[in-house]
């Protein structure tokens, strides 16, 4: 068995970066904090690649694949008890290697590396440069830890940590109230979802009597005593297994911005753009997908209803996000909704999948899409970063005709748009085809939604593309007319261009990787063969979408405006993203704050505390009441004296006799 102990260094290197930069980044390491952070993540990325090579490639025969079959088996590279609750129930810190985790560490470390490099240019001159890299390192550490977790609670720990680093990075521009609000929102919404996750863990671990993924999955997919107890116990008509898995999925949905927990994601774009690329496009937001994939055997084999929930939530989110993306004018928001939509694809791909063999196509497709999406979405965001860097605005309406000024960015962005739209031979095409095929095989309704959404995707992405790079020259003017911009950011530095090129290559080529040979639901490689005829519909729809976008936004015209006014109310509804934010605000502000919080605070001050103060006042009142007893008159005293004697005598002679 090959030695995988070095894997632990993959998350630990960025952690070291965080500690060093967090402690000294402000002063001592300030000058080279970017280099330090990037160097460490580079090392981690190299290690990840080596690990992938060892697991899938060279070492396959010895380690990844067992001697008998050709399946990739999970390997627990290391494990120590972190916190023990009772025998069998403990949080272990472990490193679990299986196809998806290896795939994920590669994705995470590579995208992270790109973003680190990109940020060297993008964030240059920021006051809290060191802190920025510290947070990035923290995120990389947490995310790598998350994907390597072999224990559901370990995963939860890193899950929370990525949430925190996301919070810190969204709020990086802390003096902007909108950034602060967005970071708060992101944290709280995902926290709320994590509550579901936590309770789900409690349910699963209580009945599974373990927190270890391997054991848990084994117990809950075979008719073990634990399996029988969790399926026989029910609550409100569903078995506790369904409850547990659904709650865990809620956690995943929160992190992955599934409807209706997606509200934080568009706002999260307040963070620096490279951060959006890393966290809110490529890695963290797919954690929910990863989580479902991690527990996929349980979902699939033991509890189809919960998997159904996954499928429908995913499909609905994909659709609604795509619709919302069509009306947004902030580039990053468009990209955010597009992310949400693409994650919806991944989710429903999992939801329609089965476990094992050919039936596991959806699972494989989902992971494949995750893989390709990470590349092209990060590319899109980095392109957006370059553009924003140049234009100093997020508004698409303020741009246009940038293709001459930013030729490289233009090409990269075009590649990415084609990839996400599913145009062959770009990477998105391959993964999306397989998702649609899996949906077709399992659920026609979802297939329909997916197909329609892919058309929408092509439309809104090219709406974005044309708005920025083609339509009219006024964006140019604005950029040129801004003297500060011209001086400071006259040309894009290499550190920003390099990642674009690397990622663009990825978006071009990643689709050619025989993904199904590596990552499948049960580790057995499968062969996928998509019939050519099947691809016609999605590609045609995508081309139609591109055409529509070109017609509307290719040149300066008032066509978009006329179209918008033609569908009036509907447009406004979509433009305001179905007023979901307002509904949330109503629930929190009006109901939680005014109907629960305020009364609680009031009751505490006035009733509970009032009771205590009332006791004191009561005592004082009694005291005032009886003060007349001490009248100062001696004869009254004598009378009390005498009454006392008489009272005692009567009481003890006649009444309280012994």
């Amino acid at each position, binding site marked *: 068995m090959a030695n995988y102990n070095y894997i632990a260094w993959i998350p630990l290197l960025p952690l070291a970066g965080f500690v060093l930069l967090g402690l000294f980044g402000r002063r001592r390491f300030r000058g080279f904090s970017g280099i330090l952070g990037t160097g460490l993540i580079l090392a981690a990325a190299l290690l990840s690649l080596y690990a992938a090579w060892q697991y899938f490639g060279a070492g396959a025969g010895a380690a990844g694949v067992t001697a008998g079959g050709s399946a990739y088996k999970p390997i627990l590279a290391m494990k120590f008890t972190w916190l023990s609750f009772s025998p069998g129930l403990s949080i272990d810190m472990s490193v679990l290697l299986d196809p998806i985790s290896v795939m994920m560490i590669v994705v995470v470390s590579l995208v992270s590396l790109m973003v680190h490099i990109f940020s060297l240019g993008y964030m240059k001159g920021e006051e809290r440069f060191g802190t920025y890299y510290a947070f990035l390192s923290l995120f990389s550490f947490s995310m790598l830890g998350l994907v390597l977790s072999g224990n559901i609670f370990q995963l939860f720990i890193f899950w929370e940590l990525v949430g925190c680093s996301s919070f810190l990075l969204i709020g990086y521009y802390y003096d902007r109230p909108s950034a602060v609000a967005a970071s708060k929102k992101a944290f709280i919404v995902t926290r709320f979802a994590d509550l579901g996750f936590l309770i789900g863990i409690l349910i699963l671990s209580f009945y599974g009597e373990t927190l270890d993924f391997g054991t848990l999955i084994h117990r809950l997919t075979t008719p073990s005593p634990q399996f029988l107890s969790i399926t026989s116990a029910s609550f409100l008509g569903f078995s506790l297994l369904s409850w547990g898995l659904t709650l865990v999925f809620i956690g995943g949905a929160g992190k992955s911005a599934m409807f209706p927990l997606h509200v934080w994601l568009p706002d999260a774009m307040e963070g620096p753009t490279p951060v959006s690329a890393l966290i809110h496009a490529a890695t963290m937001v797919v954690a929910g997908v990863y989580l479902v994939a991690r527990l996929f055997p349980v979902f699939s084999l033991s509890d189809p209803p919960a998997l159904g929930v996954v499928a429908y939530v995913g499909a609905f989110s994909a659709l609604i996000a795509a619709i919302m993306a069509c009306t947004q004018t902030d580039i990053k928001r468009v990209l955010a909704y597009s992310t949400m939509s693409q994650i919806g694809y991944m989710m429903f791909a999992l939801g329609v999948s089965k476990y094992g063999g050919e039936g596991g196509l959806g699972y494989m497709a989902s992971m494949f899409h995750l893989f390709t999406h990470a590349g092209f979405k990060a590319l899109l965001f980095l392109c957006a970063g370059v553009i924003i860097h140049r234009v100093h605005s997020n508004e698409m309406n303020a741009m246009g005709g940038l293709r001459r000024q930013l030729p490289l960015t233009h090409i990269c962005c075009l590649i990415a748009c084609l990839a996400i739209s599913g145009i062959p031979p770009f990477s998105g095409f391959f993964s999306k085809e397989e998702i649609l095929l899996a949906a077709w095989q399992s659920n026609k309704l979802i297939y329909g939604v997916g197909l329609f959404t892919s058309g929408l995707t092509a439309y809104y992405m090219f709406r974005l593309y044309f708005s920025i790079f083609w339509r009219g020259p006024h964006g140019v003017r604005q950029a040129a007319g801004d003297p500060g911009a011209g001086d400071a950011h006259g040309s894009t530095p290499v550190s920003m261009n390099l990642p674009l090129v690397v990622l663009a290559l990825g978006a071009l080529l990643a689709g050619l990787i025989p993904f199904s040979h590596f990552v499948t639901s049960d580790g057995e490689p499968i062969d996928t063969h998509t019939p050519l005829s099947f691809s016609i519909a999605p590609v045609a729809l995508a081309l139609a979408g591109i055409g529509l976008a070109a017609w509307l936004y290719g040149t300066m015209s008032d066509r978009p405006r006329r179209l918008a006014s033609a569908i009036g109310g509907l447009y406004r509804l979509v433009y305001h993203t179905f007023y979901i934010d307002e509904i949330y605000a109503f629930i929190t502000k009006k109901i939680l704050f005014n109907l629960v919080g305020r009364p609680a605070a009031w009751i505490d001050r006035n009733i509970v505390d009032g009771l205590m103060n009332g006791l004191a006042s009561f005592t004082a009142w009694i005291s005032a009441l009886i*003060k007349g007893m*001490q009248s*100062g*008159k001696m*004869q009254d005293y*004598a*009378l009390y004296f005498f009454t006392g004697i008489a009272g005692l005598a009567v009481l003890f002679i006649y009444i309280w006799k012994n």
Partner: protein
Amino acid sequence: MNQIPLTHILFVSTALFFIGMYGLLTRRNLITMLMSVELILNSVNINFVAFNRYLYADKLDGVFFTLFIITIAAAEAAVAIAIMIHLYRNLNSIDVEQTDEMKF
């Protein structure tokens, strides 16, 4: 034996006790109050003597006690009156109702 029954004497002493008590509680002059206390003491004296004579004639405990009570009452009265005189100097009155500066 043709003597007055004990109960009669006790009745007298009880009456004296309550007369004293009444005086103490109603009279406003301190001297009169002091006299009322003396009445109570006298009722006690009668009790002692009567009990001694009627029930426990073999020893003289009661009678001795009476003697001491009389003596002490005298001492008490002396001090009390001295204090009252002093009070009169300060207050120009020995009305008990006026000695209520300190209260509540």
